[in-house]
């Protein structure tokens, strides 16, 4: 078995071989998802609970669909509206859920490290669907699959990640993954949105779009959160768009066959030009969404195999 994890908490603990294992299996699921009959059996008999402590439509839908396509019983818990308002702690919620014997727990939480904490307290496999500004591993994996399909490889590429790096878990997971796969990463953004110490991550950092995009094979745009504007990180939307927005003209600085990515949801006219986002020759944004379902199916499949193997071993010992 090349994939040895019991949880998917981040890209950080993954070995490059494990990343490749997820992507390879996801390729199979891309084919399945495109077939008229979309039903797999990998998660038959297993229960998947999606626990989102932070609003999300896209990621939650993607995980739900991935689970259902593989035969899991899927339950969505609106954690942010129910228990927390009654004063229950994260650990209590986790213990309550654990008592219902789920097999896969998909968790999103607004605080960094919260999913790690939860994983220590439950006996099922936990998938991090985004924790604070820490990690969002399935996003990085789906981005990697999208890139690999477009470019044929994940090594020796130049990937420019542009925007609000400081508050982005997507950026962190992507930086870690691309570093492990031996690609070059450039971060582009206003200095107020570049995290302290980023230069020590083994990436290049610039606040100049032209310089940052030069020769890039992949241009990854990040969403600019509205609340960042109120926080005084940037002076205005229009100044941001002028300096860091991506349109066909700016994109001309990148490699001629560069692809454009965005984790969604997009702010058209704030970080990316609407026409460019819809340009099927350059933008792979729709494909990212498609890859998301496949990658999540693959990740849950691999975790479920390890979970079943672990339980069989326990039974043998008992």
């Amino acid at each position, binding site marked *: 078995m090349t994939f040895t994890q019991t949880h998917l908490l981040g890209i950080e603990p993954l070995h490059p071989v494990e990343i490749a294992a997820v992507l390879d299996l996801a390729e199979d699921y891309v084919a399945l998802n495109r077939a008229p009959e979309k039903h797999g059996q990998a998660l038959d008999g297993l229960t998947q609970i999606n626990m989102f402590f932070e609003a999300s439509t896209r990621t939650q839908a993607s995980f739900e669909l991935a689970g259902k396509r593989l035969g899991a019983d899927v339950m969505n818990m609106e954690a942010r509206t129910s228990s927390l308002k009654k004063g229950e702690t994260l650990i209590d919620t986790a213990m309550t859920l654990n008592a219902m014997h789920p097999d896969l727990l998909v968790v999103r939480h607004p605080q960094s490290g919260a999913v790690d904490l939860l994983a220590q307290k439950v006996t099922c496999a936990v998938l991090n669907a985004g924790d604070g500004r*820490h990690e969002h591993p399935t996003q990085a994996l789906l981005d990697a699959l999208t890139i690999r399909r477009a470019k044929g490889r994940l090594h020796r590429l130049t990937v420019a990640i542009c925007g609000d790096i400081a508050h982005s878990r997507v950026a962190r997971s992507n930086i870690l993954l691309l570093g492990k796969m031996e690609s070059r990463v450039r971060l582009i953004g206003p200095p107020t949105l570049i995290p*302290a110490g980023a230069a020590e991550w083994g990436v290049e950092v610039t606040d100049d779009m032209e310089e940052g995009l030069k020769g890039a094979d992949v241009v990854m745009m990040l969403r600019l959160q509205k609340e960042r504007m109120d926080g005084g990180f940037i002076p205005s939307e229009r100044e941001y768009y002028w300096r860091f927005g991506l349109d066909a003209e700016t994109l001309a600085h990148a490699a001629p066959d560069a692809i454009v990515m965005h984790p969604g949801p997009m702010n058209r006219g704030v970080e990316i030009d609407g026409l460019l986002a819809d340009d099927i020759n350059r933008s792979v944004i729709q494909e990212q969404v498609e890859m998301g379902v496949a990658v999540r199916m693959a990740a849950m499949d691999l975790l479920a195999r390890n979970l079943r193997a672990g339980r069989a071993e326990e039974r043998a010992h008992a």
Partner: protein
Amino acid sequence: MTLHLTNLRLIDPEAGADRPGHLSIGSDGRIAAVARDGAPPPGATDCGGLCLAPGLVDVGVKVGEPGERHKESFASAGRAAARGGVTTIVTRPDTLPAIDTPEVLEFVRRRAEEECVVRIAPMAALTKGREGREMTELSFLLDAGAVAFSDGDRVVEDTRVLSRAMTYAKGLGALVVAHCQEPGLSRGAVATSGKFASLKGLPAVSPMAERMALDRDIALVEMTGVRYHADQITTARALPALERARRNGHDVTAGTSIHHLTLNALDIGDYRTFFKVKPPLRSEDDRVAAVQAVGAGLIDVISSMHTPQDEESKRLPFEAAASGAVGLETLLPAAMRLFHSGALTLPQLWRALSLNPARRLGLPGGRLAVGAPADLVLFDPDAPFVLDRATLASKSKNTPFDGARMEGRVRATWVGGALVHGAVP
């Protein structure tokens, strides 16, 4: 009855000495004799070369009375202190309610007298409710026994309020103890900014926030002439400011916490909340600079910043978890790390752990001299052990040293000549 102890390694911070000798504890609870040469008195107990030093004076200990007795009571804090060789605890006023009136202070002193086996020297709040708006009744509080004034880890943001409180305190000769964190920069931060905090996605503050706050306070000291003590200086960038103030003759001293001298930001690892303290743990460079500053005498005081927190408040995501660590019992063994690594000598350590804090707060402890109170700790600096947090005497077990290999065990502690922990060998 006089107790004679011999075959001791005497740690005398006043003389800067670490040498063999014998010592007698008089029946009046004071040191009756201390000698390095000559024959020990007949019937003296052979201590087998263990170290004997003045008991530790720990500035900034949080006891949960009033308000949070489930976290720590005077009884449990006293037991923990005795086991850790701490003979005087200087308590913080950040209780519920805050110790900001002579009535609350009276309550605290009465409770301490009834329950606590070590000496208590209480600090009182500088502003009412520690809200940074109006100064407390400093004069009444002094009369009631307050040894210093502090708002704990809250910064008095309004400079005008602080300048008035300092001016008033100056007139009374009172000591103001402040926490140095520029409030705007540090708002919401739970870690020190840098590669590690950024990777972990934790809201972080630049170490410069400490320097900025210290700079402001030193300017106010220059303006008002008040006696001032910074509770924790933990960054290299703040040290030149401290040195300059000292050189210019201002009455400024500084402390630091044992955690900032023995741990760094990387110890937080995978969001371990027992390592969440205020200010946050710093880089290794800052840690080394702080240790050197203690050695050079620029940082005067090492304390445990004992902050008991219950399990519930620590079993949360790192950002949401409570700050602080217990430290009364681990202060001495953690300090031994600095001794065994060769960074500081035992007399240097005891200046910062005992003599300097006693002097700064006008307390009698910290000395190995005839006539000084027999507040003493007998310890083996080399005895190894693995810390199990369940064995701590504190009601709260939130120590960052759980499972850590440590050296240095307290064998006996005396307060005013009375044995409060351990036994004479």
